[in-house]
């Protein structure tokens, strides 16, 4: 298939950036989107151009590295699919495809399609853990966990930390990302002793990092490649209010 690509090019953090157009004439429909990008880069190198920088690693939809906005949608048009798992058979011959980086105040562009998502790291470091010292854990089956809660915890824990939820949100909110981690631990008995500090600390850093608030649009769930439910945002709100109240009581 023949494609025209309109790709965001930006030299570095301080560069203003802009779109460049490229023509690809022989793209295999079975290729993945990133393999199509490889073909573009190979062509650019051959023509003495500069290849397009983009984040990618596992190419099987689990590491959360890939992060582009394709035709206005994070990870492209297919529901529940990361860019690396998107295949060219979902595009049409002769189509023009627009490719941009994730755009959010808290995700500055480093180069071309590569953004800095270290704000996510700082949120996790604020409380995204259970404080269990290596070696101190009790026998695993001493902790029984209701299967339904365990499955829900898994559904939340399936978040790959790609940031599509933030990129698609008109407020640049990270509530789905934070809600997923809070939910995983709120649903498991192991997470309960630290639940109050956890939610207060993670939300505080989320705010410091400049992420917006949630106004219940639901774009995050719709664009999430792992289809993480907005129910996790509700659980985050509940955990937050409950933590605020219990802290006040004390």
């Amino acid at each position, binding site marked *: 298939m023949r494609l025209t690509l309109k790709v965001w090019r930006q*030299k*570095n953090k301080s560069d203003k950036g802009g779109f460049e157009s490229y023509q690809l004439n022989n793209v*295999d429909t079975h*290729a*993945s989107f*990133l393999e*199509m990008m490889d073909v573009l880069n*190979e062509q650019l*190198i051959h023509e*003495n151009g*500069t*290849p397009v*920088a983009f984040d*990618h*690693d*596992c*190419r*099987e*939809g*689990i*590491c*959360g*590295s890939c992060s582009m906005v394709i035709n206005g949608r994070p990870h492209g048009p297919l529901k529940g699919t990361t860019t690396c*798992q998107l*295949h060219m*058979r979902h595009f049409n011959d002769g189509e023009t495809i627009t490719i941009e980086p994730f755009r959010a105040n808290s995700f500055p562009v*480093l*180069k071309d399609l590569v953004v*800095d*998502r*270290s704000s996510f*790291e700082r949120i*996790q*470091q*604020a409380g*995204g*853990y*259970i*404080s*269990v010292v*290596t*070696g101190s*854990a*009790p*026998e*695993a*089956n001493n*902790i029984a*966990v209701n*299967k339904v809660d*365990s*499955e829900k*915890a*898994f559904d939340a824990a399936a978040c*790959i*930390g790609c940031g599509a939820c933030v990129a698609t949100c008109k407020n640049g909110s990270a509530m789905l990302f934070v809600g997923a981690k809070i939910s*995983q*631990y709120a649903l*498991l008995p*192991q997470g309960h002793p630290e639940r109050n500090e956890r939610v207060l600390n993670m939300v505080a850093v989320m705010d410091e990092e400049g992420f917006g608030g949630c106004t219940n649009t639901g774009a995050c769930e719709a664009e999430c490649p792992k289809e993480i439910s907005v129910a996790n945002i509700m659980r985050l709100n509940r955990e937050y209010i409950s933590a605020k109240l219990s802290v006040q009581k004390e």
Partner: protein
Amino acid sequence: MALDSKIPSGPLGEKWSQYKSSVKLVNPSNKKKIDIIVVGTGLAGASAAASLGELGYKVKAFCFQDSARRAHSIAAQGGINAAKNYRNDGDSVYRLFYDTIKGGDYRSREGNVHRLAEVSVNIIDQCVAQGVPFAREYSGLLDNRSFGGVQVSRTFYARGQTGQQLLLGAYSALNRQVKEKSVELFTRHEMVEVVIENGKARGVIVRDLVTGEIQRHAAHAVVLATGGYGNVFFLSTNAMGCNTTAIWKAHKKGAFFGNPCFTQIHPTCIPVHGEYQSKLTLMSESLRNDGRVWVSKSKGDKRKPQDIPEEERDYYLERKYPSFGNLVPRDIASRAAKEACDDGRGVGETGMAVYLDFADAIQKYGQDTIKSRYGNLFEMYDKITGEDPYKTPMMIYPAVHYTMGGLWVDYNLMTNIPGMYATGECNFSDHGANRLGASALMQGLADGYFVLPYTIGDYLSGEILTGKIKTDSPAFDEAEKNVRAQIDKLMNVKGTKSVDFYHRKLGKVMWDKCGMARDAIGLAEAIEEIKKIRVEFWSDVKIPGTANELNPELEKAIRVADFIELGELMCRDALNREESCGGHFRTEYQTPDGEALRDDNKFAYVGAWEYKGETQPQELHKEELVFESVHLTQRSYK
């Protein structure tokens, strides 16, 4: 040089506990004065960095990805083994040990493997306490499933995303230490050289991948936890960034490389289908619990699978290995698929695939049950191939997946360079010539959580008076100079071909001549071809841009330069090992019915290669394997 494995004396089952009781310790106030560098943040690296930080050491952790959570452990699907015997089906520490030694075709160390089996049970406890959402029964207790090469159900799992959940557990422990300031984390930093001073590992040189800045970091010990080198084949199930650079630089500075030719070819991957292909995707081995592998009985059969009647199908694993059936170990399943395809009975457009069929399982258990077991894998298959495995059999073919070889380490997980450790996939230690399914996650976490935190103290207790290691020493100057020289040289080739061009070329030679089947003639040819690729690479590679910016082509070039050198060593090792064992199959050495034929008299050793400089080949050292508990037999899964 004599290689000392430092396996403790005493009965097999007591070695580790006796070792732990007598190992030297570092007291808490001294730990604060000790710096440790951990390179890599996958299961082995993140668990080590977190655990060492908890102990009070000052840790610096490095990864090339933008987050520690993106290390390739994240992609492991099937599960993690542990000898909990929750099924009451006859499992025990000894049986896990025995299965692992046998599965590895008797090319691993008894002492290491028994320790691995012992600590396996602690790993599950640790992960559950961290909030890892393992699969559970309605009782609320943990569920298990079985995996290839064993007859018990000892595999713990979290749907088809066990690696993800375990890594996020280790990542959470790491994050906690980052908050506590015991670990300083450097993302988007790639290690490009090790620093050796007076024979001891004293630090690393890293490149900041965003700015191109070359940095020096010093420490009293360096832990490499940088994963496997399967990407030497270009096409593998590894992530695009997986590379050998850290361990290869260590090798060139004196660390011995153990059994480099031991590569695992995983039987159930999505087949290759185009020139543009950048990687291969694995379908978890757990699928073989319910899927039946078959091809047509007749050659060149182009009928659709549903048009081939039952009696004309060859369920070749069930036929050849009645007692293990579809659950034979990976090396055997892979080779059997290759044989069927070489025999002209492969399926699909290319004829380089076999069917993995779930029709019987769906009929027996219902689609919902199969969906609950493998839903995400079926979806992934559908996304990639555009075919629905609930309706038509999957097509699979073997692909490079894991490397059992790696840096030679002793019982302490220390390389032959004092102060330099290697953990997880990047060492050679536990899997012999073939790794069993669900054992990689077990080893990575065993090393990081429960082995290294003990063994590293033994060395560091001798470092408490050393004081802060300085980065302005001649050793650091020299290491940085080498790095800058290599980068300058690469940038100045200004040739005509991309890095990928050479990487693909290398990969093809490796796959054709050092892949699933190897022979002396092919390996000798491969060595010559790789030498040529090396010369061409250094005279005609083209790297756009500069070294002082985010430059993925330069990153790849540094890695591929190392892969080329490693590829040659792998071929030499494969050529030297004149026997077949596990994943190493030399066509000259097979039983009359085509099984791997070991030669225990001549090759029951670890091949540890010493780097001898640019101009001459590595020198082989042998660590003879001593078997005190296990009787060596030909593996039989019939």
